[in-house]
């Protein structure tokens, strides 16, 4: 990420904001950016000039702002760092959502890639490892709040063992909880993370539902099955069973 490394924290914030605004409205206006970041209009103009110089945004005075390919990549990178950090704070450190968000906002600009990857791996490990898991995290939360977590240790370990056995019997591996496209209610927006390989996957991908694409769920059919989504500016219908193979990140206007 050579481009991203040379950006200042505030420019990264701008990129992130522009990306989110585009996700919602297709193109960003300087005043939207100013409102979102709570800064003045002139400082937005200044920042946009700088970003345009680095060829990260397409910008001309009084015109809509869009990201260049390079800009989008950089913005995605910032957002990814933000999400990883926030998730780590919430899922592993049991911090409240908005506190985590704020902290992630500050830390996202300076965290090196290697450490970031380790954060992800650690979070995954905690999820999957029988000695970790959500109960363990809950126990950690209890420890933070009450400072007396040692009394139940034997019981807890016995429980963990029991669960390992159970899992072995079922033969399944615990999976990370993911949001599927079919879980997004009508009117909701989301971003595609992954399209699971399946019979329809290649067609779904060709129709523009590629990782990173933005989707708006428009409506559900009267009988409750196929859903109507908007992707790349047009309407596409999918059965719920097909939408089940699409992992997404819900996007809520913050």
């Amino acid at each position, binding site marked *: 990420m050579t481009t991203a490394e040379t950006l200042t924290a505030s420019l990264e914030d701008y990129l992130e904001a522009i990306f989110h605004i585009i996700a919602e409205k297709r193109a960003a206006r300087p005043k939207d950016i100013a409102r979102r970041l709570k800064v003045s209009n002139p400082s937005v103009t200044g920042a946009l000039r700088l970003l345009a110089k680095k060829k990260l945004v397409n910008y001309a005075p009084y015109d*809509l702002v869009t990201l260049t390919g390079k800009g989008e990549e950089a913005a995605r990178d910032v957002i990814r760092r933000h999400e990883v950090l926030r998730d780590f704070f919430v899922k592993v450190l049991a911090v409240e959502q908005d506190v985590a968000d704020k902290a992630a906002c500050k830390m996202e600009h300076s965290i090196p890639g290697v450490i970031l990857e380790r954060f992800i791996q650690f979070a995954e490990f905690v999820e999957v490892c029988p000695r970790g898991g959500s109960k363990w995290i809950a126990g950690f939360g209890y420890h933070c709040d009450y400072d007396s977590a040692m009394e139940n240790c034997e019981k807890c370990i016995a429980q963990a063992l029991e669960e390992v056995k159970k899992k072995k019997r079922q033969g399944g591996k615990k999976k990370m909880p993911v949001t599927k496209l079919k879980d997004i209610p009508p009117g909701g927006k989301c971003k595609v993370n992954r399209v699971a390989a399946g019979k329809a*996957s290649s*067609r779904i991908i*060709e129709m523009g539902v590629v990782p990173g694409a933005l989707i708006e769920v428009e409506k559900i059919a009267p009988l409750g099955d196929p859903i109507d989504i908007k992707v790349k500016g047009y309407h596409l219908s999918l059965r719920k069973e097909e939408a089940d193979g699409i992992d997404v990140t819900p996007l809520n206007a913050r």
Partner: protein
Amino acid sequence: MRPKITVALAGNPNSGKTTIFNNLTGTRQHVGNYPGVTVERKEGRCRHAGVDIHLVDLPGTYSLTAYSAEEVVARNFIIDEKPDVVVDIIDASNLERNLYLAVQLMELGVPLVLVFNMSDQARARGYQFDLDKLSRFFGARIVETVGHKGHGMQQLLEAVVATAREQDCAEAQPKSGGNLACRASIRGPQASDGRIDYGPDIEAELEKLTDLLRQSGFSGPKYNPRWLALKLLENDKEIRSQIKSPRLLERVDQSRERIEKRTGENPESVIAGRRYGFISGACQQAVRSTIEIRHTISDRIDAVMTNRVLGLPVFLAMMYLVFYLTFTIGDPPMDWIEEFFGWLGSSVDTLWPADSVLKSLVTDGIIGGVGGVVIFLPNILLLFLAIAILEDTGYMARAAFIMDRLMHKIGLHGKSFIPMLIGFGCSVPAIMATRTLENRRDRLVTMLVVPLMSCGARLPIYALIIPAFFPKAWHAPMLWIIYMIGILLAIASAKLLRSTILRGESVPFVMELPPYRLPTVRSVLLHMWERGWLYLRKAGTVILGISIVLWAMTNFPGLSPKQQAEFEKQRQMVENSFRSEPQKAAALLEEIDNRRAEAALESSIAGRIGRLMEPLLRPMGFDWKIGTALIGAFAAKEVFVAQMGIVYAVGEADEESESLRSKLQNNYSPLVGFCIMLFCLVSAPCMATIAITRRESNSWKWALFQLGGLTALAYVLTACVYLGGRLLGLGI
């Protein structure tokens, strides 16, 4: 420059491709089929700047993978027949998705012209295109058109001819940089080389595979090795099946695994993502969006049409309209046709001096047969008028969207609903309506079960039998029961077929809901005309042939001279002895004629087959008379009633005939009456249905399977009902 070039029209469905094809060729077009598949092949010609242009309208596709028969056909046409220019019609108001096909065409390395169609709508939506820039990205000329107004057609032809010229120039000097040199001379040094950077992970594997393919000498002049390698990474079944070396396939699988490991996604997904990346990069630089429309008019229409509450009533109302248009409005012209052929038959009958076999062949066989073909034409034309309007406005996709839940339950696609519904009117147009289904398996299943939807021609049979055997309070419920049996059997058979001989994963419902558009009168009428003509030309001949065979079966060998003489003698006797009472004489003569007709039918081939089959028909409670009438009913279901009239010597009978009803009551039990209805509902559809199934499935195998399968089902079912009913003592 050669005087004649071949140009292929490619493009997404709903991009206005057909309109442009019609604009360019007018009526100089020809519809055929691609060999071996039921994909339509449309060709036409036009002239521009002294060049004869042979246009081939490829099936509308979103991509060039081997996903559907249409895509394979489109791709193979481009690869095998090497058109001089490929024109990709693009809906400019839906640019990104439409450009996906353009990217694939660019990767194939064909001489390409991009057409930004519906550019007026794109402009209304606030898009501004930098065509020069886009043209450099895609290495192709770009023309803006408005298909339904005919704007931009000359520019399009100019671009096509210019691209073909360039190609010639490239071929003339292959050593000096070939194609690129020529393109560069015309379009400047920045012309694209038709390559997309797929990122380090994929590029590394691509390079390895490309080398491998080159070494194994597989590429050749037909395929470009990079393209081939890319298709293999995409797991393209069609291309994979052409690679015979298992070692090579193993290497491909290894490459795919490596990509999956490195990127965490399957290679198809990564490759498609990169293609879309290329497109959005190009669009970001060359397309500006000046206004922002959150809800288009189309979205507002959809707020009603596919509304959770209103969607279903609106859909049912639309279906009622289609049904009304096809059958209620189609009824008077059908009567006219019937009357006309009746008149023609009788006038030939009176003008023809003497009774002869030839006369009977002409009046009953040929005129009757042609009438039997033409009679369906009003239905077919009106149905396809309705379907063309539904398709062109974009409602068809919504209809499928609304009905998919129901149809998916029986393993079919939402689009199967309309043919099934039309089946209640007549199976022939219904089977033609299955053309809207893209998947062959779905289409076949729908075609095979459509005859179980009780068609209008079976109604006279029910109308004859129900009042004859059942009390008045039972009339309506009985009719309802018969229709329900048909529907339930259709559902069960569809499920059965889907899980046995036509097994396969159900087709994903990944379908575009195109924006609503106003259809043009020209394209709707052209579509209607095409279907009507296709029916007359292809199915009509088969129907005519079968009806002549059936005529022969019910007329030959006819009465023996001895029987003839016997009936003549009787006539003479009546005429002589009732000279003073002409009314009585007429009644007696008619009775003799009726008995004569009965005797003739009994001794005909059909009658003999009926007699021969009697032991076989016994388990269903039928005698040879019903058997003979059933053979006649193969011409058209309602003929059953007339044939029963003849075998019971009541003369010209229709479903209101009380004398025939009383004959039936005297000879059969209500159980047999029900069995007749059941058998007529399920058994062998009429010959027109078989002919159209043969035509639409493109094989006699399926047509005969339909005939045999339904008859066997009817036989088993009716026998079970009859024997079961006897055992339980019901309706004896």
